[in-house]
């Protein structure tokens, strides 16, 4: 039971927003000590475990390439492509962005798109403008905020359920590396393949919700409540 102190330190450390890397190191040392290992052994165990899991960090090998392409205008090109999308309905527009974000995520380009890069400067304003055109006038404030939240959500859901298809993404390597240390050896490609069904399910589920969003936006609201108040 005492070893649960490691889990408690982890949860508490994240809760008080301490530096997560420091929290993780302290939690690991505490768990080893609580298991009755001496301090020298605890440090050695942590060091060996860190070294055995180096595989996880080789995903950073792609950064020089991404940086080089960004220097040559990769982000700018993605923006140019997005603004060319001519879709009248905000939900469909968000769905188009969702699909593009899933595709770049599966190619390992998590940095193309994102809340700061794409949602705030481009996607949210485009969706709001589309909604205003469609309703032929101003968008009530609660609806505008709800639509903005949907723009942010489309980005999150799309990237969460696509990045694992890229075999060198951190979480794929984390799964492989951790299972390796536990004696279960897998190829990263197998893990990537089994991420595809959930990616398709995310597209179906969230895509359907974005299509419904257009129907909700088209109707003038019965009152000032944002539409998600009704189930």
């Amino acid at each position, binding site marked *: 039971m005492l070893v*649960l102190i*490691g889990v408690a330190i*982890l949860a508490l450390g*994240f809760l008080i927003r301490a*530096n*997560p*890397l*420091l929290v993780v190191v*302290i939690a*690991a040392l505490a768990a*080893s000590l609580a298991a009755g290992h001496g301090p020298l052994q605890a440090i050695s165990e*942590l*060091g060996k*475990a*860190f*070294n055995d*899991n*180096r595989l*996880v*960090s080789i995903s*950073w090998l*792609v950064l*020089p*390439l*991404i*940086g080089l392409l960004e*220097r*040559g*205008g990769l982000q700018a*090109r993605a923006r140019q*492509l997005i603004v060319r999308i001519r879709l009248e309905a905000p939900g469909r527009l968000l769905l188009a962005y969702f699909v593009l974000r899933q595709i770049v995520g599966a*190619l390992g380009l998590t940095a193309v798109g994102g809340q700061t890069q794409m*949602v705030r400067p481009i996607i949210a304003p485009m969706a709001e403008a589309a909604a205003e055109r469609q309703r032929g006038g101003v968008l009530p404030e609660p609806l505008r905020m709800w639509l903005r*939240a949907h723009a942010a*959500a489309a*980005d*999150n*859901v799309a990237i969460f359920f696509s990045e694992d298809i*890229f*075999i*060198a993404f*951190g*979480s794929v390597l984390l*799964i492989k590396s*951790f299972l390796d*240390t*536990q004696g*279960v050896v897998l*190829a990263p*490609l*197998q*893990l990537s393949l*089994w*991420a595809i*069904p*959930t990616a398709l*399910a*995310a597209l179906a589920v*969230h895509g359907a919700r974005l299509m419904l969003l257009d129907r909700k936006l088209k109707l003038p609201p019965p009152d000032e409540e944002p539409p*998600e108040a009704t189930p």
Partner: protein
Amino acid sequence: MIGTGQVYALVGAMFAAVALLSARDRENPRRWGNAAFWGLVAVSFLAGGRIGGFANGLLVIALALIAGLGGLGQGAPATTSPAEREASAQRLGDRLFLPTLIVPAVSVIGSLTLKSLTLGGHALVAAKDATVVSLALGVIAALAVALPMLKAPLAAPLQEGRKLMDTVGWAALLPQALAALGTVFAAAGVGQVVGGLIGRAVPLDTPFAAVCAYTIGMALFTVVMGNAFAAFPVMTAAIGLPLIVHRFHGDPAVMGAIGMLSGFCGTLVTPMAANFNLVPVALLEIPDRWAVIRVQAPTALVLLIVNTALMYFLAFRA
């Protein structure tokens, strides 16, 4: 034979270059912090296999202290202006995406074919390392295509890579550190204790019950931690490996892949994952802090159910 050793040397060389370039960057007031941090990562990749557990342990503690005490700054290498990027994007068009397609293409093809390459009767690449070697080859091939296409100086990838490395900062090592934590937790027996606690609360004597406990546990644990990477080793040692894989003989690849994705369902609904759920609220100037989480919750819930069903049907498909 080519294997992870050579790839680690390549990654180590990259981090060593990042450290050296950081040390020379007078624009960064914390340049020595950056140089020390990336330099230690380089040591880990270049020599981690030879210096032993204790020295590696001290190295990790040093990394955590540099990160925790705010020792890292942001490097500022010379780069192109937004206008130049816009013009370059116009000129090159969609060809800019070509190098990014090379990496996954080479990785997948290499993973499937490299293991059958032989030189004088010996395998050229160890079968278990084929993916990792292919990834490195893919990056090198993509750089070879991108550098002449962009007419960029040879140092540009390292300088731009350094800038991105500094942007990610200490968080770059968090996935590896969390995997290490999982290994340490497993050795300390955390998994058995957590598994025992869950087993006492709900009976886990069928494959279906074990899958439900694992996927729902991943999501809930991620809600508490704000991080599926942290939840994964704990829940996998508690339920995933002992029950789904060892007792009920489920496919470990399905368990691992969909288990992590179940954790991501938790990430969508927790304010602990501030980067995803709270930062956009601030960026978009939405008054309600919970607005994004509220919109994401229905998708998260449905996908958790889908993940549970997928794992149950796919892991035990044989």
